[in-house]
């Protein structure tokens, strides 16, 4: 249930003021996630109040080394999401209150989502034939 909940674009310098404003207004941090694109990373954050979410997206260029100010001092819940983004995407979060130094997610491959891992490489495999399957 989320259609109608807006996705707003932010610049990196709006990242912290927006979080501070939502914290003052009593919002809850719902989630943070990342997506690796060809030339940048997208970081998506969701705040919620009274069962209604507001989402924000910020784009970070891959070069130089992507970093985003930590929100963990504003929303304590942010530290696990930021450690996850750090371990999966190689993002840096200056000001991170609890930094596990890359030991939070013990994946076999270091920074598995930092390269082209999340970028589509092949066309979809066909669905099994059924009455409701879309036409190919």
């Amino acid at each position, binding site marked *: *249930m*989320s*259609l109608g*909940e807006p*996705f707003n674009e932010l610049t990196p310098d709006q990242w912290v003021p927006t979080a501070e404003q939502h914290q003052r207004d009593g919002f*809850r*941090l*719902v*989630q943070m*996630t990342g*997506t690796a694109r060809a030339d940048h990373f997208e970081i*998506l954050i*969701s705040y919620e109040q009274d*069962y209604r*979410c507001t*989402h924000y997206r910020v784009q970070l260029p891959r070069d130089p080394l992507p970093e985003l100010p930590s929100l963990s001092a504003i*929303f*304590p*819940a942010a*530290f*696990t999401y930021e450690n*996850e983004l750090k*371990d999966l995407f190689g993002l840096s979060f200056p000001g991170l209150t*609890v930094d*596990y130094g890359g*030991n*939070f*997610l*013990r*994946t076999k491959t270091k920074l*598995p989502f930092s390269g082209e*891992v*999340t*970028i*589509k*490489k*092949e*066309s*979809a*495999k*066909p*669905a*099994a034939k*059924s*009455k*409701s*399957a*879309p*036409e*190919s």
Partner: protein
Amino acid sequence: MSNTTIVPFGPQHPVLPEPIHLDLELDDERVVRALPSIGYVHRGLELLAERYDFVEMANVAERICGICSFIHGQGYCQGIEQLMGVEIPPRAAYLRTVWAEISRIQSHVLWLGLAADALGYESLFQHSWRIREMMVDIIEETTGGRVIFGVCKVGGIRKDVDDETLRDVRRRIGEIRAAFDEIATIFRDDPTVRQRTVGVGLLSAADAHALGAVGPVLRASGVVHDTRRLGYAAYGELDWEPIVEQDGDCYARCLVRVREVDQSFDLITQCLDRMPAGEVEISVKGKRPKGEAMFRLEQPRGEVCYYISADGKKNLDRFRVRTPTFANIAPLIHMLKGCELADVPVIVLTIDPCVSCNER
């Protein structure tokens, strides 16, 4: 020079059916801090959404977890349906609600059994799982599966359940509820249960909110928040209120789950009494999801979020799942600080960690 000792907890531990690791920094027997690490069984299921057809991906979504399997499938299908502007038939919505609540009962009763075992109640563990088995039997008879339901599909459900079977389910729900009432009394009133859980692993309402707790962990701290209030599936048409306890300790989290089992019996009964007639699926032939949205549902362990981004092709652009266990890691770290080493297993257990969900 520090006098603290590091004690590893997990990834293999008797109270942990799945691998999660905590480095416990101890001052004598007291936990100074806990350092979590996860990722031991990360499977990359989110990535598969970018490669598989969105219709088939419903089967993968259901395999994120073996306990809340149906609700993962439901959340995925619901998200795709909303992106495509498809409204499923009312009977499908009601049957989805019934199966979701059956999932909640079997998950909570499974947890109650594990909790009983951790507290030293072998017989209570066996009674709990005996009752869970009765629910799993209903799952098998109505869906054909015991772990993976396989009935949720984009556009509704794959398999209708005839009215005679539904009447039988309603009768058996009454019997199972009576059996559950017997063990619920022990979880509520037994002095040993209370001694091991009351005042242990405290989490205040303010901390629960700030640390992003979800589900029974959040509601046991006095915060009224249940994602089912969004009214998805049939929840908007049923009479119910979120279960809330005020004390924020392990006992409160146990009570929330006991009361939620009772509530789920009631929700199933309401659904069966009001079950609409008619079709159970709608054709989505030729339709493709386009756009992006975040969908939220209430799993047994709490709020789960699905971010779906699609560009009108057969495979999704991005599929992301924020599981309740991940959200409850920060509150867990907070609860462990200052507790006794002997209480760590009970506290860890009361967030009902699901590593399988977490390592999707």
